[in-house]
């Protein structure tokens, strides 16, 4: 795989230097956040800054959990992301099954149309969406949020699932059908297990998108007890004096679940995350 064939040691050194810089630029801001979140208030503002907390404390986390609505936001984020994953899974599995297993008029047109909507950016959809949601009387509900995330993920997840379904030999399914299983049973016991990487990639993609979303939640949710993490944490900024230790602790807590999910990806579909 040694494409550029690095012969001179200086080129080799440059390569390692480049790689180190790449790792550092990505990791440093995060490490700095971790460091700040464990510092007591006085040390947060110390000059020169200390890179390893001299006097590490859980105080910021303690205040985050007790003095702010963080746990409520966390719960909301979990509920909304979880439901979005579930709904997206069911709808895109059914759709992918349809696109790979049935023959009907306009099938490819439908598939193309759905993919096209992948081009729509949130800001173009969210303004009319907001007005329509108000007209339907479901503004300020998690339901509206789950619908928004699902429809937003669908173009990508449907195509991903379709690609995975298409690789599963139909003979296996036929065998199940011959043995007397219904189509639904064949789907659940034969197709889905074989398409497991696709199922996982789809769920992770949807989860991260829902977990990270800011704009839909900002616009569709108005009451504090329904807010998800990104919007809830942004509102911590509104206090007169910014409590950086607290904010950094919150930042860490939002990042961890997204990172855990990301580690699960191990390559599947990571490139499709929209942003």
């Amino acid at each position, binding site marked *: 795989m040694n494409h550029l064939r690095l012969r001179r040691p200086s080129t080799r050194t440059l390569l390692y230097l480049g*790689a180190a810089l790449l790792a550092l630029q990505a990791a440093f801001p*995060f490490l700095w956040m971790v460091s700040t979140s464990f510092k007591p208030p006085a040390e947060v503002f110390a000059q020169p800054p200390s890179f390893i907390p001299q006097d590490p404390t859980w105080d910021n986390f303690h205040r985050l959990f007790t003095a702010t609505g963080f746990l409520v936001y966390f719960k909301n984020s979990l509920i909304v992301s979880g439901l979005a994953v579930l709904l997206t899974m069911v709808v895109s599995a*059914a759709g992918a099954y349809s696109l790979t297993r049935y*023959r009907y008029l306009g099938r490819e047109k439908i598939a193309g149309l759905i993919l096209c909507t992948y081009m729509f950016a949130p800001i173009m959809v969210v303004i*009319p969406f907001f007005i329509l949601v108000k007209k339907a009387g479901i503004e300020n509900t998690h339901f509206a949020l789950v619908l928004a995330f699902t429809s*937003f993920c669908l173009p990508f997840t449907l195509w991903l699932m379709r690609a995975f379904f298409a690789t599963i030999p139909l003979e296996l399914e036929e065998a199940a059908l011959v043995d007397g299983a219904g189509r639904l049973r064949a789907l659940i016991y034969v197709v889905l297990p074989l398409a497991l990487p696709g199922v996982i990639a789809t769920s992770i993609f949807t989860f991260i998108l829902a977990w990270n979303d800011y704009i839909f939640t900002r616009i569709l949710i108005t009451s504090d007890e329904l807010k998800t993490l990104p919007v809830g944490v942004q509102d911590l900024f509104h206090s007169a004096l910014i409590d950086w230790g607290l904010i950094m602790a919150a930042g860490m807590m939002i990042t961890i679940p*997204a990172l855990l999910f990301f580690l699960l990806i191990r390559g599947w579909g990571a490139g*499709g995350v929209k942003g």
Partner: protein
Amino acid sequence: MTGLSYPEPKPEKPSGARPRPESNPAGASAPRRGWIPATTPERHQQLWGLLTIAPALFLILALTLYPVAYSLWLSLLEKHSFFPQERFIGLENYFYLWKDEEFWTSLWLGTVYSIWTIFFQIVLGVAAALILNETFVGRGLVRAIVLFPYMIPTIVAVILWKWLLNDTYGVVNYWLLAFGIMRDPISWLGADHIMLSVIVMSVWQFFPFVLLSILARLQTIPPELYEAAKVDGASAVRRFIHVTLPQIRGILFVVILLRSIWMFTKFDTVWLMGEGAGAGRFIRTLPVYAYMRTLTYYQAGLGAALAVIMFAILVVCTVVYFRMFREEADIG
């Protein structure tokens, strides 16, 4: 060192799909192979096919396409964002925007922001992909770490950078002063530097997407091509221009298109950086302006008109882009 396996990212063309039966011209009337069960009557196929795609189609139609179409109508109305009254005013919103200085400023700022962020994302992304395509100790780990900025929520990226760039306590100013590069601390989120700051931060956040896409393609280039070039005595630079570049043209075409669409319509990063910074109006790009018209001034009609204009600009640019690079479009 297991590392991540980098698949072909598939935003537009799932690569795992095997050729669909349609692409086989033979046997148009006979029951085609690959359909189960092959004996099911046509009508049955139609019914179940449509029934199973219906939920997905309904959601897309009702929650994406209908809202986008509705915004065309909404842009012709004078409508308060929270009250139900609305009044048809024709193209008045567009006439208003034509004479609105803030609109032109936001268009300009949005263009500046998009061009610089796209340019640096592509350059850095390709360079980083070339580095990570080499073999070295710890490659798997570095490949995993570099994706981090792209995976975290935007709000986290923003608070990280606001803290790094804080004018009094930020570590960036501390270093610049400590190393004697600057005499006085710089107000990174002030009027003069906020555009630079948001561009740097956006490049940091989004270039991993380019890296991921290009690296996936680099891994599929047959090594023989490089061997042949080396036998001919081509230097590393020439090998990049004559071997690598032609190979990544197709994916580069798609990546530049996607990134351009997403940067031009980028809302959350820009809005969150500008909000509370005092100098927010110096990075009030088109998407931010559309949001503000709708939710700060409650003029939903004007907000929708801005969204429609944004959409129109994107469509025109996409068409021009495809015309200019027709060749790459075919490869991609």
